[in-house]
């Protein structure tokens, strides 16, 4: 087993709200390609952080028996005033890589070799996104975590990224947490669907997507009826809920 979460509880930030997760069980074997489908604000990113160990759980057990990446394409640790190479070298050192060729390899992986010695703040915006992707997949891990998308939404980089991910999938496991069913359909062998703070396991991807879509439709119906007929709703509350419906619609 590569990663296992058993009876995990994670409280919401608001003390009076229901817990984000309660009795959550998830496992990913080494080399498995697992999808996690969840609606907006269902705690997907928090779950990925719990899996990689940067977010503590309030109760339960998280067991990691292999090296897990951070949620890709996380880029908050990049220093804008440093060059691309300095950023790569820093992350490399954190993971014990002192190889001089490492910055060049990562830059080639992200197709940003021309910007290697340029300060990140002076680079075009796509460089940060590509660097975050390349660093994530370039550090040797047994299990790679992806937040929302596996392939970055960069047209010029897409073809290259697909090749990199395909190569990665042949040798390593991955977990993608997303609200986009197409992502799990394209890359995963099994799926967990997040509902009411728990995860339901589906060994069949198509069944999981079907279940997720039904959940979304039910949620949309509930929101629509609440927004239209709720006598207690004031204007502000109604507007916020219509916003939620848009987000659910996007997921569908």
């Amino acid at each position: 087993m590569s990663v296992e979460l058993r009876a995990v509880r994670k409280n919401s930030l608001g003390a009076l709200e229901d817990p984000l997760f309660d009795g959550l069980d998830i496992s990913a074997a080494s080399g498995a390609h697992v999808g996690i489908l969840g609606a907006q604000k269902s705690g997907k990113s928090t779950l990925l952080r719990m899996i990689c160990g940067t977010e503590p759980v309030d109760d339960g057990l998280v067991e990691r028996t292999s090296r897990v990446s951070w949620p890709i394409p996380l880029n908050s640790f990049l220093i804008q005033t440093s060059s691309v190479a300095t950023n790569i070298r820093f992350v490399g050192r954190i993971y014990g890589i002192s190889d001089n060729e490492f910055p060049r390899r990562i830059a080639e992986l992200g197709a940003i070799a021309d910007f290697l010695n340029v300060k990140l703040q002076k680079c075009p915006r796509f460089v940060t996104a590509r660097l975050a992707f390349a660093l994530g997949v370039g550090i040797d891990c047994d299990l790679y975590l992806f937040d929302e998308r596996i392939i970055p939404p960069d047209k010029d980089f897409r073809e290259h990224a697909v090749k990199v991910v395909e190569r990665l999938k042949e040798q390593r496991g991955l977990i993608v947490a997303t609200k986009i069913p197409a992502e799990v359909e394209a890359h995963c062998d099994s799926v967990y669907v997040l509902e009411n703070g728990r995860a339901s396991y589906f060994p069949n991807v198509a069944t999981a997507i079907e279940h997720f879509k039904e959940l979304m439709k039910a949620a949309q119906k509930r929101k629509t009826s609440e927004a239209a007929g709720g006598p207690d709703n004031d204007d502000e509350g109604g507007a916020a809920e219509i916003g939620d419906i848009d987000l659910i619609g996007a997921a569908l």
Partner: protein
Amino acid sequence: MLKLLKTQFDVVKALALREIQSQQANLAYGYGWVLFDITLSFIGLLILKLVIRAFNVPGLPVITYLVTGLIPWFLFSSAYIAPAAAIKRNQRLLSLPGVTPLDLVLGSSLQLLCTYGLFFLVAATVSSFYEKSSFPHFPLGVILLFLSCWLIGVSFGLVLMVLTRLYAPAGKFVGFFMRFAMITSGVVISIKMFPESIWPYLSWNPMLHVEELIRVYWFPGYASPVANPAYILECVVVLMCAGLLLERYVRRRLPV
């Protein structure tokens, strides 16, 4: 276990190098500021010592005496502020698996040790040559005491960080207390110049023992009535255990 230690060593090394690089990259606010801070305090205290000659210890060179007291004190006072500041400044790095708040503290405080160590070496050499005074007769002792200043500072900083998270104004009380502590730590005024009746109370302060012992190991003729190396060791061990345990305890219960 060894693998875990190697991982932490890699992380701390990377963070310390990053701190040093950013200090070198911004000379005006990095080494420049440290140099300015030390020089200003040094000149102020030197004037004080030259004008009010009663503070001088007979037979000891004034400038070297000040250098051997002031720079270790500055290391201590910077090190105790470092833990909270390092975590606040580098909070975004905690999103990388393997990087813990303690690593950020160690990385930042290692950079402080290197900076003040370098200044101490240069300033002590220059002042010793200028005043034609002797070099330390027990250099290893001075190095260990300099390290003790750093360890006491970082450990005290970890305890203080926890106290400040539990009760925010705690930091302000400590700031006031430190101004008083600098006078009674033997940085400028030797313990012998205080009334003998208060020695037992002043000698609770581990920094007084460190400052006095540095002079004992540096100047052959200097003898301290209170300095005790065992007490310094006890304080380092107790403070370090308390700091590490408290940091570990609040890491999950009181996130930054």
